[in-house]
């Protein structure tokens, strides 16, 4: 049946095909069985330069002989079209990457292949992107691994390989943590499960056996969140930061030692003043044969000797350096315990002790005995401040809060308050405003315990209006301390 010519169908004449051949936006060339280029289009000429009278391998690759494994030869033999990635040089000698489509040209259907049309497309940009991506993956200054559903590492970047060894094909938990079984709370497992990004703090072991602290992010690879085949694990090594943190804590400890020694000297000077005063009055009593004076001086000596005993006892207790014994506890319960303990004592001197608890607060790793000591010190100070005040209705309140990842206890009072001078000194010396009744170690001990928990203590006060002291504990630090205590060889966050 003769094909009917459609309306508006162009006349396909020689000029049409010639023009189409020339204008097609690819490099096109026709070669014969001897690999001579017998025709090429404008794109080809622009890209490869003069081709007339040259062999295709000379034009494409600047060779004097046919390429090894030449696809054109195969197409001449079997008449099948082919596609291949090729590298060569352009007319300026610059490296060129292109995809080549080969198609056989026959004069007759099912006849022998007379010529081959080679259609090539420059993919140098794509190649460059691939190389850049590869370079980025390899050189990025963090650890990157890609794992499959069996937790087998299928790719790892240079930084990771340098630190964890030859890892491809091995289980991630074995490589990261030298474990034989999957890690509890594995973030990759969660990503495989829910298709979401997860973050966690981790401690692993490098190939040399040294500890590595890193922040890990796991993300699904692929668009389908239901059937995730691979997860990418990207982590930043924070071992150096952790080491610096330790150094800072050590420097703070040393500074605290200096302040403690200065404070001790201040306390001893006060006691010496009392002892010398006692001796002076005793001496005077003896000279004047004044029994009243003798007794007064003797009492001063006794009192100051007792103060020395108290100071030494408190100092020894303060100096006992120990790591906080962290266990998960309800912070509200600790506050309530202190309130129950002091409520009656406070009421006897006209002070109302209350709690204002954050009901949403969850259990947190704290040293219950240490926090008990801190709250005891703060509450007893607050009650004293109310007692020293002229106000009739003394009020002390213990408040708990959990805001922005920080757990806090605040003890507030409407007592005497402190001026700037007192506030400045309050943690730095064995400073007491309680005359004979205090050793000045209460707040210093409190600060020490708070710091051991990785927290901070702050004082806000106005003379005549009252004070509030806040102990703030970043929960991440509490968790890190807790995990460090429980698993020295590597841990992860929930």
């Amino acid at each position, binding site marked *: 049946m003769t094909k009917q010519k459609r309306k508006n169908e162009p006349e396909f004449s020689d000029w049409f095909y010639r023009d189409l051949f020339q204008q097609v936006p690819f490099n096109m060339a026709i070669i014969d069985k001897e690999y001579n280029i017998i025709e090429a289009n404008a794109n080809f000429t622009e890209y490869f330069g003069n081709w007339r009278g040259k062999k295709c391998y000379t034009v494409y690759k600047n060779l004097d002989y046919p390429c090894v494994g030449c696809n054109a030869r195969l197409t001449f033999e079997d008449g099948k079209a082919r596609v291949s990635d090729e590298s060569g040089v352009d007319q300026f000698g610059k490296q060129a990457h292109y995809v080549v489509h080969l198609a056989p040209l026959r004069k007759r259907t099912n006849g022998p292949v007379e010529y081959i049309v080679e259609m090539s497309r420059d993919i140098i940009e794509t190649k460059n992107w691939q190389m850049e991506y590869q370079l980025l993956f390899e050189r990025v200054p963090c650890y990157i691994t890609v794992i499959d559903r069996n937790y087998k590492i299928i790719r790892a970047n240079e930084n990771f390989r340098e630190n964890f060894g030859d890892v491809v094909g091995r289980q991630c938990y074995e490589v990261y943590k030298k474990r034989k079984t999957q890690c509890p709370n594995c973030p990759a497992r969660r990503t495989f499960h829910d298709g979401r990004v997860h973050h966690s703090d981790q401690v692993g072991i490098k190939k040399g056996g040294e500890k590595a602290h890193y922040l890990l992010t796991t993300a699904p690879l692929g668009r389908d969140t239901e059937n995730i085949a691979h997860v990418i694990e990207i982590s930043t090594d924070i071992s150096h930061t952790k080491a610096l943190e330790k150094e800072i804590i050590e420097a703070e400890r040393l500074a605290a030692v200096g302040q403690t020694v200065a404070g001790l000297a201040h306390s001893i*000077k006060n006691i010496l*003043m009392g002892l010398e005063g006692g001796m002076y009055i005793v001496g005077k009593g003896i000279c004047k044969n004044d029994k009243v004076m003798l007794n007064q001086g003797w009492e001063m000596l006794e009192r100051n000797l007792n103060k020395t005993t108290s100071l030494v006892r408190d100092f020894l207790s303060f100096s006992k350096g120990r790591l906080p014994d962290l266990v998960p506890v309800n912070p509200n319960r600790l506050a309530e315990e202190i309130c129950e303990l002091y409520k009656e004592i406070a009421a006897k001197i006209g002070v109302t002790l209350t709690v204002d608890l954050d009901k949403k607060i969850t259990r947190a790793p704290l040293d219950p005995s240490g926090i008990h000591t801190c709250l005891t010190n703060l509450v007893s100070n607050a009650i004293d401040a109310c007692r020293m005040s002229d106000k009739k209705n003394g009020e002390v309140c213990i408040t708990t809060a959990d805001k922005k990842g920080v757990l806090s206890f605040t003890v507030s009072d409407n007592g005497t308050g402190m001026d700037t001078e007192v506030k400045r000194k309050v943690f730095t010396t064995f400073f007491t*405003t309680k005359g*004979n009744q205090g050793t000045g170690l209460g707040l210093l001990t409190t600060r020490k315990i708070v710091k051991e928990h990785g927290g901070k203590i702050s004082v806000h006060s106005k003379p005549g209006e009252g004070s509030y002291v806040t102990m703030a504990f970043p929960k991440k630090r509490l968790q890190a301390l807790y995990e460090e205590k429980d698993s020295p060889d590597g841990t992860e966050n929930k």
Partner: protein
Amino acid sequence: MKKKVILIIDDEPDVISYLSAVLDDVDYDIHSSDSTADGLEKARKLHPDLICLDIMMPEESGLSLYARLRRDECLATIPVIIISGMESQQEFDFRRYVGDRQIPPPERYIEKPINVEAFVATVRTLISVVPGEPDENTQRQRS
């Protein structure tokens, strides 16, 4: 002749007893206060010839009271000895605690525990000086 009046302000009763006993031997009229509020009231009432003042006290520090004394026209010229164990005599830097340049430094800073002879000599010197005219030592300390 009327006895010179000295006011001791310190929250430590033992310090008050000690300083009173020392100064009583030199025949001064000694008064004392264990708080800054009471101390200020007594200073206004007695207008003493000298004030011995502690720094670390509840409610308000001795240096805050000192600043208030100096801002009070009636009390501004009374010589003040700061007696404290907080810092040594050499280390005591008044301007670290009181930034207001209108307030001159105290006449003396004496470190606890005191040297009785030196303390008495200082008291005698300051008391003999006409109020408002600093003695040689004061001038040296203030410069």
